[in-house]
């Protein structure tokens, strides 16, 4: 069939992209986890809202609340996730504590000279304390936000619900920002990976296209891989590495410094490869499945003729 070399080349290249993307994702995940990027991203998101230079750094106070400080991994790593109901309770209680703190005074007994802390004139109840804390803040964007929770609630449970809803929407928005950041990060990791492995997609594609044996072996492995794995969830970086090693034993993959010495045009190839890898393994796996199906359909009549 006339299209076969093209389809097989596409399948082979897509298969390599799936494997490289899996390795890049694994490296990226390791990096993100090692430096607790998720935890720091969440903290920065909250800092943007709750670290108020005019009033107080309420993020620090929130993170010291037992509900949130208990989420630190081994007491050190910032939490990567805060349940919404934990957040709302921690927020309201932190504000109430802030209100109390502003009213603490220390009185000395004139006879015994003992000093004792006294909280003067604070209202009873979390809702009232929250309201007092917010009213006591100097005008700032944070005050406006905290006040908006008050405007829509008449009691503690409504206040908790309000702040919970806000936090949920903010986290949803945050997950988009996080994905965008991860995309950039994955590109950086991919770029280093392609240099380290000397993977130039243009040269690799040319070599696969021009080498019938190579193309056949890789495409067959790709079809097998696609058929054996209905989704990528069962495939991890370790499996990807094993597949690459198995292929390398059978045939020499057109990747690596030993097979491809440096050429200036590699730079463009690396950038292109890194961009493609940073699309992520699921994208390429999906595409691979579709092309494998095309191959099946296109090869069906010839099989029946035979």
């Amino acid at each position: 069939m006339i299209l076969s070399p093209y389809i097989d080349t596409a399948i082979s290249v897509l298969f390599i992209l799936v494997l490289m993307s899996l390795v890049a994702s694994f490296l990226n995940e390791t990096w993100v986890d090692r430096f607790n990027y998720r935890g720091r991203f969440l903290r920065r998101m909250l800092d943007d809202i709750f670290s108020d230079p005019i009033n107080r750094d309420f993020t620090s106070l929130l993170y010291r609340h037992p509900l949130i400080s208990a989420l630190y991994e081994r007491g050190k790593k910032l939490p990567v996730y805060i349940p919404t109901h934990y957040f709302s309770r921690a927020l309201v209680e932190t504000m109430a504590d802030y209100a109390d703190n502003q009213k603490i005074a220390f009185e000395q007994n004139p006879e015994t000279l003992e000093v004792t802390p006294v909280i003067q004139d604070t209202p009873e109840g979390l809702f009232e304390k929250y309201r007092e804390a917010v009213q006591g803040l100097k005008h700032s964007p944070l005050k406006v936000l905290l006040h908006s929770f008050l405007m829509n609630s008449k009691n503690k449970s409504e206040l908790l619900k309000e702040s919970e809803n806000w936090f949920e929407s903010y986290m949803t928005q945050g997950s988009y920002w996080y994905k965008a950041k991860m995309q950039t990060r994955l590109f950086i990791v991919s770029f280093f990976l392609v240099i380290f492995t000397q993977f130039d997609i243009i040269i690799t594609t040319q070599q696969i296209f021009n080498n019938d044996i190579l193309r056949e072996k890789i495409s067959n492995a790709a079809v097998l891989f696609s058929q054996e794995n209905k989704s990528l969830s069962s495939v991890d970086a370790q499996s990807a590495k094993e597949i690459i090693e198995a292929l390398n034993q059978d045939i020499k993959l057109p990747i690596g410094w030993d097979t491809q010495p440096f050429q200036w045009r590699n730079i463009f190839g690396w950038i292109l490869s890194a961009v493609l890898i940073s699309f992520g393994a699921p994208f390429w796996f999906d595409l691979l499945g579709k092309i494998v199906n095309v191959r099946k359909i296109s090869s069906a009549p010839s099989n029946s003729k035979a």
Partner: protein
Amino acid sequence: MRIYNCHTHIFTLEDTPEGFLKYGLGFLPDWVLELLKRLVLKKWMARLALKLLRKPYAVKGLSFHLVGLLSTSSQVFRNLQKFYPPGSRFVVLPLNFAHVGLGDLKVPYAQQLDELIQVKRSFPNDCLLFVHIDPREDTNENNRKFIEKYLERGFSGIKMYTPLGYYPFDPRLEEVYRLAEEKAVPIVSHCSQGGIFYAGKELPKSFLRPQSFNPQAGGKYEFEAAKNEVFCDHFVHPERYIDVLEKFPKLKLCFAHFGWDTIEHRRKRIYHRKELYEGVKKLLLDERYPNLYADISYSLFDKKFSKQLKADFEANPALQDKVVFGTDYFMTLQEKLTESQLYEGFRADVGEAIFTKLAYENPKRFLTSAYYRAS
């Protein structure tokens, strides 16, 4: 005998400005400083650097960072308590770095005071809080109100750190002094060359030709510009307090780090060390100013200083009633001595009778005010 340590710090790195590394490293590009900051903020890195570095100024900075990194104010305070017998009391001195010229504070100064209140909530009798006043914060009247508010809430005194960029005779401090004199509120003022200083890019004109709320006869101050670190020595000279003391002779003022200036500095300074030491001593013995004190914080790590102090006490017995004990915890970590080594060593050096005066009798007088009675 109850021990009063009249000079300690428990603030953490959170309370410092963003650009704190510019001290001594200001010549480096910002991106290098940012990178260094990230490295120094790793505890293991700070510990390693502390072991490897021999430069006193760098070590000082790192010791400071390390304690700041390891702890919250409450943890620093609990750590300090461990070195002393139960029932000891500690004057805790905050610092407002907002005007030091190194960028924004990580947390507002008011939050540092909130933290201290939390510490006092746990140790109401042992933790004696002072409130730092920087006159640049507000007007003369508002600065008084600010101090008054905290004194009424249970703070025991006022802290001044003039090398951050203000003179003791700043007109915006006049009402604060009036309040302090009326209510016998103790003031601790940093009075030694070296330490933290104003690190802004340029010296403001008001530094060179400052206004005093009580200028001495014909006295107009004019100082020549110099490198920040050196220029800030002008802020600590005991003569700068004459205008203040003439107007408020009963002011209860403590010159901090008495004797530090007898110690050989690593860098060139404006004033001769002996001049500052003698200047403070002269004021302490001046009968016109009965409520002046000096603390020996930081200086006490030096055995030569203990000897000199003992000799001065013998020559001027009245001086024994003018000096209070303090260590400058946790700044003294740079001298690689633990807090207990410091205080026990000093106690042994000066003898029990003098130590009792310095650590108990004198502090009791110094700390007692309309707001607090020391016992």
